[in-house]
């Protein structure tokens, strides 16, 4: 059964197209998804996942496990960067340690979506409020990352406009992916509550295309991740080990919390994936602006070149096995 779960994931179209993208780079094919087409797919995925999550949230309401789960998710996005930072600081300078720590406190929406698809394939249900948890985990880690730099960093650091709290908070809460995800979630709630025909008419767009668009986007992610492999040499074996082991540790903590919260198996997997995934969209962009002293090739190549492939290829089915062991079935 264990190999079957891994195989089922490996042989799903999204993961196979990810491999195809990696292969294109390794073999030297000139296949590319020219800019801004990847942005089209990424905007679409955020809009669709937000809208659908909002619709489901409107149906389930805010009672029961919803608030505790969301609070636990936000707490994880605050705590993970702290212990990641302490660990990384033994090897890296302040700036790089803080930037990587923030990256691992935040989440990867595409990993979450791939996990949802996986749940669809293995036939386990999950709740719409997990999308709210996803949306709320992106921002706190950014703020923790910058707080670390401010508190532990040199006092004579140029504190120009870019460094002001105003622009940090804007970067944290209004960056395009958080904004579109939260906005679509709210729209989903409103439409589902007040004009249900609107939901009907959006579904062919947000549902039917979703799996294909995810596959297409993962084809590009495979290309981009493989292009990052060269940077990994510079990152060194310890950082690579961090990029594999930290997600596993976070997933273990995640499954314990999920058990404590009494989440069902589907939601527990998603909760683990939120803890285990690292951001390669919102956080790198914020760190590039607020902590330019850190080296982007370090935090992008660990999260995008190691953790992301690890999670979608073997992480998700492994976490599923843990879920099956530790979380009582439906």
């Amino acid at each position, binding site marked *: 059964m264990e190999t079957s779960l891994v195989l089922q994931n490996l042989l799903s179209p999204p993961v196979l197209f990810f491999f195809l993208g990696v292969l294109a780079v390794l073999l030297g094919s000139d296949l590319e998804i020219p*800019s*801004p087409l*990847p*942005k089209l*797919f*990424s905007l679409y995925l955020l809009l669709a996942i937000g809208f659908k999550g909002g619709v489901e949230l409107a149906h389930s309401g805010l009672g029961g496990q919803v608030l505790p789960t969301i609070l636990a998710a936000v707490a994880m996005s605050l705590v993970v960067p702290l212990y990641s930072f302490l660990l990384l600081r033994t090897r890296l300078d302040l700036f790089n340690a803080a930037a990587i720590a923030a990256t691992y406190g935040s989440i990867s929406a595409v990993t979450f979506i791939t996990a949802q698809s996986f749940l669809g394939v293995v036939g386990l249900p999950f709740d719409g409020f997990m999308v709210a948890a996803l949306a709320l985990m992106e921002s706190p880690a950014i703020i923790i990352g910058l707080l670390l730099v401010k508190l532990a960093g040199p006092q004579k650091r*140029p504190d*120009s*406009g*870019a460094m002001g709290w105003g622009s940090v908070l804007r970067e944290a809460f209004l*960056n*395009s*992916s958080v904004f579109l995800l939260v906005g679509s979630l709210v729209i989903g709630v409103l439409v589902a509550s007040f004009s249900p025909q609107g939901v009907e008419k959006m579904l062919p767009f947000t549902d039917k295309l979703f799996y294909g668009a995810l596959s297409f*986007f993962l084809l*590009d992610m495979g*290309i*981009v991740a493989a*292009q990052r492999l060269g940077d990994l040499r510079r990152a060194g074996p310890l950082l690579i080990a961090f990029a594999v082991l930290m997600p596993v540790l976070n997933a273990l903590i995640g499954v314990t919390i999920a058990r404590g919260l009494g989440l069902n198996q589907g939601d527990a997997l998603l909760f683990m994936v939120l803890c285990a995934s690292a951001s*390669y*969209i*919102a956080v*790198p*962009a914020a760190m*590039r*602006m607020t902590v*330019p002293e850190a*080296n*982007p*090739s370090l935090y*992008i190549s660990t999260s995008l070149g190691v953790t992301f492939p690890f999670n979608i290829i073997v992480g998700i089915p492994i976490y599923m096995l843990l879920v099956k062991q530790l979380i009582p079935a439906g």
Partner: protein
Amino acid sequence: MKRLDLILSERELQKVLQVIDAAGAPGYSVMRHVTGKGPHGAVSESMDFSSLGANAHVIVFCEQETLVKLRDGIQPLLRYYGGVAFVSEATPL
């Protein structure tokens, strides 16, 4: 007249344009989606799906006086965030 060529990350573009406006330049032109390599490493368009963006190329045709004002605003940005700025001669057609 002088011609100023600036190449820097798209993320800092707004700040640089504000400096150019403030210096009283008669205008500017911007080309985005510029890739390249410099002391801080390679910049590609492959992260364009995130908001990380690539580089921008800014051209300003202006008088020598404006250039002096521009220097004070732009050099600290380039020193902190990276990027290059070069001046050459230009005659109106």
